[in-house]
């Protein structure tokens, strides 16, 4: 991903919108006891298309914004989302995935990483109370809800980021496909 004012705006504005939307609407909608987590999906989408550097920068910024807006311990969300963004970015760089449905497992894995790592960080920091097993249920439901929401979020982010991308996984996929008119030998026009 190229670094320019345009690319920073293309990441920053949706990120800010995601944080506001998360806090003012999505956190107030409970489905089977849990909520959708849009912020981690946006971080994962940016990392997936932009790579590990863009991923960890976006993760840091998202965590910083989230902690500022919620009044939670500053730095905790940044720490975890930086790692999540880097992890997703590295996955893209190492494996070069291009399947159209891959955002679903990537979104689910990123969410799982986020909820588990954030729980671990919270434990290490200042949780003195007993923890109910229902936390696990909430985590699993959040992962499933985010898996459902991942595809539209990733598609939206890709459209926004397209101009700033050095490599677009979907373009790679398109180039890999054989020509439509090719015969069994792979040569256009020879149908034997």
């Amino acid at each position, binding site marked *: 991903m190229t670094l320019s004012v345009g690319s920073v705006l293309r990441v920053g504005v949706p990120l800010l919108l995601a944080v*506001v*939307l*998360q*806090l*003012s*609407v*999505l*956190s*107030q*909608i*409970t*489905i089977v*006891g849990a*909520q959708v*987590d849009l*912020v981690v999906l946006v971080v994962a989408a940016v990392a997936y298309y932009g790579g*590990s*550097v863009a991923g*960890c*920068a976006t*993760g*840091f910024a998202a*965590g*910083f914004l*989230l*902690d*500022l*807006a*919620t*009044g*939670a*311990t*500053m*730095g*905790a969300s*940044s*720490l975890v989302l*930086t*790692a999540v963004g*880097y992890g997703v970015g590295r996955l893209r760089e190492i494996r070069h995935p291009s399947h159209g449905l891959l955002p679903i497992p990537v979104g689910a894995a990123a969410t799982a990483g986020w*909820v588990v790592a*954030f*729980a671990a960080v*919270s434990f290490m*920091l*200042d*949780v*003195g*109370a*007993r*923890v*109910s*097993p*229902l*936390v*696990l249920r*909430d985590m699993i439901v959040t992962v499933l809800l985010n898996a459902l929401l991942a595809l539209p979020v990733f598609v939206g982010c890709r459209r926004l980021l397209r101009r700033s991308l050095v490599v677009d996984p979907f373009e790679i996929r398109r180039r890999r496909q054989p020509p439509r008119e090719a015969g069994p030998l792979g040569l256009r026009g020879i149908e034997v």
Partner: protein
Amino acid sequence: MYDKKVVRRRRAALAVFLALSIVILTAYFGESGGGFFHALQRGAQETFAPIETGASRALKPVQDFFDWAGDSIDAKDQNEQLREEVERLRSELAEAQTRERDSRQVRGLVGLHRQAGFPDGTEPVTARVIARSPNVWYSSLKIDKGSGDGIRLNQPVIAAANNPSDRGPVGGLAGKVTRVTGGTAEVTLLTDASSGVAAQIMPAGAAGVAKPEVGNPRDLLLDFVEGGRRVTEGTMVVTSGFKASRVESLFPRGIPIGEVTKVDLDEVELYQRVHIRPFADFRRIDIVQVLTRKPRAAETADVLTP
């Protein structure tokens, strides 16, 4: 495969952002409430407040739709008879149910004040929830009233029950104000991992400290109740409100917290652990009341929140 420069840059970026996060985390824990990062948070919250209020209002229909869906599942039996009408009037019904829910919460809060034993001398300020913490580890709400409306730090906050029973109170203690700006305030709920309140079982009088069980908002734990005290299920738990010589107390005596559901008896332990079902419905709070005027000092209670 990769240029060494690219690899170095990638690793440097990760190291810089992780180090920055840890530095912020350490500084945040190290500084006092008036430090740089706390001030930055307050400033950001004041900046975010109008945006959040606007977004919350603009997207209320979306939230109403999900609320309507939840209410519909709860009232499935009744809805069977009204299915055709619901289909025709879906949008109208969503709006009506949301209003009804809001008014029920307000009625519940008013009823709570009229209840015998509720602390006198408090001036309730009704506020609407505009934002909510997205995870279970930090259970907090942001409300649309702030210092301009008379709200101050550490004031108790009450909320209505979602389905008030005939015999129990129609709501109860929800938390306390932990941050205030001109037009908004942050409420840390009783279900927050850091919360705790001195409580008393009525009418037996056994006292203890009510703490949350993280991730389970329908269960609070009353710890440090003397082993010899007899505690029966179904009895009410209220804020105990006592004054020690050097402790500045926060919650007035007599605010209902919940009812006893289970008692863990362990003969080895000196204390028994009592499970409480809170009267306030922490999952679905839309409207709260902040008890703004502090009662007489003799009617106050201790809060163990750090």
